[in-house]
């Protein structure tokens, strides 16, 4: 067993209280992938690790091994994500991201692409007035990183082009499928505009995405299609999605 200390950039994905004053964390690190670690004494007022173990914060953390368990021993904040942690909706969005990342990643398997994606998305969320695009960007890019990128160029089966006929997004078939090829597959109907928007989200430069105008009905169409598509690969619906619906239904605006 490796007993040397590791120092790595880390995003706190989840944490739960453990024993009297400790927190058991799941963190996403840049080089080691997802790891579980114990942060001792961080629920006490004067803990020096308190700031760097807050949910969603990004820090350089040092981990040491002790009896098969990783301990957080030191930390230096990179980005506290304060703006994100002070906004109820944003907390719910960030929780959704963290839950999905935790669901799909195996412990200790490095995946720097996921790290960079999560860091980018959380950073953007902090400043966003409308998180819609950022969230769908996360969903689609995450699917792509995991190798489940939906095929959106033409019907996956007969290659019929988008200009021609009705389409649906099928997770089982890995992309869009036309009405006549659909058969008994479960799929969410998507308009051509929605398909083109999803393709843009997958391939365009991030800055250009924020200029995209999408109607409310297209948003709903894309939401349902992507949610069904993701749940097929996740094998269950993330809990945070239901909570998100509860929170955002209660806007003070």
């Amino acid at each position, binding site marked *: 067993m490796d007993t040397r200390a590791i120092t790595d950039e880390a995003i706190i994905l989840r944490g739960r209280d453990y024993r009297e004053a400790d927190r058991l964390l799941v963190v996403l690190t840049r080089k080691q992938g997802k790891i579980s670690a114990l942060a001792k004494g961080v629920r006490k007022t004067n803990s020096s690790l308190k700031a760097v173990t807050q949910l969603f914060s990004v820090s350089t953390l040092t981990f040491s091994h002790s009896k098969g368990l990783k301990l957080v021993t030191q930390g230096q904040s990179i980005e506290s994500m304060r703006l994100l942690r*002070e906004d109820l909706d944003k907390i719910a969005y960030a929780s959704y991201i963290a839950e999905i990342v935790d669901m799909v990643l195996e412990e200790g398997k490095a995946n720097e692409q996921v790290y960079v994606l999560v860091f980018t998305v959380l950073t953007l969320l902090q400043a966003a007035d409308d998180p819609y695009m950022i969230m769908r960007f996360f969903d689609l890019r995450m699917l792509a990183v995991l190798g489940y990128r939906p095929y959106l160029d033409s019907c996956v089966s007969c290659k019929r082009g988008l200009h021609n006929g009705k389409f649906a997004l099928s997770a089982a078939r890995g992309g869009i499928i036309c009405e006549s090829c659909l058969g008994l597959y479960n799929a969410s109907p998507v308009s051509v505009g929605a398909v083109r928007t999803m393709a843009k989200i997958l391939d365009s430069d991030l800055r250009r995405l924020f200029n995209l105008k999408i109607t409310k009905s297209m948003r709903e169409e894309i939401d349902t299609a992507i949610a069904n598509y993701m749940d097929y690969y996740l094998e269950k619906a993330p809990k945070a999605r239901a909570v998100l619906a509860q929170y955002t239904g209660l806007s003070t605006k």
Partner: protein
Amino acid sequence: MAFYYFPKSMEKLISYLMKLPGVGPKTAQRLAFHLLYAPEADALGLAEAIKEARAKVKRCQNCSNLTDEAYCPICIDATRDAKSICVVEQPGDVIVMEKTGEYKGLYHVLHGSLSPLEGRGPKELTVDLLMKRLAEGGVSEVIMATNTGVEGEATAMYLARLIKPLGIKTTRLAHGVPVGGDLEYTDELTLARAFVGRKDL
């Protein structure tokens, strides 16, 4: 090769002890031995105390704090200011607050915090009971004294959203409670200061 196991009754005791939070197999074994060798009055006293607490302790029908009666001593104390409700996560937080001596109002115990990640929504807490209390009228200020970590903040913000439309002032304990601080571990002076410096939500 034959293995020697603990007697069945002891295995049973160990297996129950292992269900306690933070207790692993080794600690459970140590505790089991301790209970076996401790004076009979101590060991059986513990069993009796558990039984009694389980039978008697319930949630106050008004504030959800733990109590032996239908209502807790704070809720039935006529000298307390019923216009103010301080919302805390755990029964232990009430005790911490009371020690500051700064607060004269009533409490509401949520029995947890909101956590989208752990799938803990408002229904898992005593939010409905709080809203019922507020709907009955007479309350002019709700003070959010949830912990300052993300989950505690989310809980405070969520409740503020629910309560604001009722026209009741909602404030949050402000200065002095450090980020990520659990109330239970915040010393009394900082907490007293936090009460004085609370801000609108």
